[in-house]
């Protein structure tokens, strides 16, 4: 079972990202589970969402405490939230940031085995005209983790957002996939 934890802020679509990733993995024939941290979500407040992916039906009904993969949608969270809490030793961290590898690593409490960086905010602003990074960051997830192929993510995005909005969001994911830089640590 692969466990993924998303960190975002209310309004950035972390919950939607978790759902889209689950739908994409489902299209690949996996069993999935996606859910928000059941907190008191408000626009701008830190938000957590989770996705589980497995080859077998998923029975466990708890939050994720030891993720394989952590996805950070908002770079400012690195200053306020311990995003690597419980991260597995071979864990992957994916961050939306314009900062360098060194600057990001300095803020992480635990060094991941792999770090993937992409400036998803700029991509989202260019393509969507809004700083909503949930679909763009999924391109980075596809590239850094190889748990789900990009076309499945794009298909799931188009099912979530209809018409031209879906096309644009799928394009944001592709752009992010191409621009993501991966560091093996």
């Amino acid at each position, binding site marked *: 079972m692969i466990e993924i934890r998303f960190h975002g802020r209310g309004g950035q679509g972390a919950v939607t990202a978790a*759902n889209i990733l689950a739908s994409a993995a489902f299209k690949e024939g996996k069993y999935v*589970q996606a859910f928000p941290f*059941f907190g008191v979500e408000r626009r701008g407040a830190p938000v957590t969402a989770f996705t589980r992916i497995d080859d077998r039906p998923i*029975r466990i009904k*708890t939050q994720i405490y030891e993720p394989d993969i952590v996805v950070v949608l908002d770079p400012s969270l690195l200053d306020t939230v311990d995003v690597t809490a419980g991260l597995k030793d071979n864990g992957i961290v994916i961050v939306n940031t314009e900062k360098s590898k060194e600057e990001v690593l300095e803020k992480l409490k635990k060094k991941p085995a792999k770090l993937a960086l992409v400036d998803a905010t700029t991509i989202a602003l260019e393509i969507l005209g809004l700083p909503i990074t949930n679909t763009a960051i999924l391109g980075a997830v596809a590239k850094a983790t190889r748990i789900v192929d990009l076309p499945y993510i794009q298909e799931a995005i188009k099912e979530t957002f209809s018409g031209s909005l879906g096309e644009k969001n799928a394009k944001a994911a592709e752009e992010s996939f191409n621009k993501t830089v991966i560091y093996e640590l």
Partner: protein
Amino acid sequence: MEYKPIRKVVSGNYAAAYAVKHARVQVVAAYPITPQTSIIEKIAEFIANGETDIQYVPVESEHSAMAATIGASATGARAFTATAAQGLALMHEMLHWASGARLPIVMVDVNRAMAPPWSVWDDQTDSLAQRDTGWMQFYAENNQEVYDGVLMSYKIAETVNVPVMVVESAFILSHTYDVVEMIPQELVDEFLPPRKPLYTLTDFDNPVSVGALATPNDYYEFRYKLAKAHEDAKKVIKDVGKEFGERFGRDYSSMIETGYIDDADFVFMGMGSLMGTVKQAVDLLRDEGYRVGYAKVRWFRPFPKEELEAIAESVKGIAVLDRNFSFGQEGILFNEAKGALYNTGERPLMKDYIVGLGGRDFTVPDVKAIAENMKAIIEKGELDREVEWYHLKR
């Protein structure tokens, strides 16, 4: 027609809404309340898209939601509503009207903690507080069971003329996306044909009165008939659960789903979504050599006394997991299970663990810690205490 399921990734609430559509429900009356709201929003969306011709009645409170559902059901319609916590409490009076008038309504209650303090998270005390209203209660472990539970409940309710509450966990199911196998409409129709009511308010050639006065000379027999209907429902539940399994591959012929009972010193017993985590943990515990199993109570009303007795015969201990509490006494499932076994002579060591109230996360390590405690109790042959508030901050 061969059964080929339609697999979708949906939340527990959407699973409920799809089941309502597939059951060809005719009337829905509801009032929004977190975390139930997305059930009725999804139904409203189905109506707006022209996917169903459900008559939707927006009302100003849950009391009225149940009142309108009762009215619809009394005309012979298949009727549905959904609520949670304070909303269910506000319906309380009307719940008696529904069961007393023997109307086969199905309602989804999304288990949510009662306020104050204000909470929107999972807790079974809201539905269990409606224990004595005469409704049957089905507890779903996962989104699939929410979907299957609604479909089966209409068939069961319409056979015995008793309403059913299908209960799912706040957020842990209601807002969690998971894979659900849905049944093609034609096959649902074969399993669940249109309702055939014995009496309706709109059969003007055979006029009836619903909710009339019964003097002391008659009231008692009305109560007995409702009591007997619950007793008779046990066989109907098993038959419908078996038929569902034969048609669609998921068997619900037991009111208590068990695992590893024959080879277990003790079992975890509980209801709802926390039993998914328990199943996962039990597999891990067995790998570590623990002789442990599980007993998931699917139907709390009618209470599956006979099945519980069979479990009690074969184990030394039962660890009851209650995500609920009856103040001044103990966890409600624990209380019921002990009471059910008293006269049977089957008295395994039973301990009540109060867990997960108000959405406190109940994890695999928690199940393991309880297993450790229960194992020690069985080795010693006596309880350390009867009721334990497991998560209490010390």
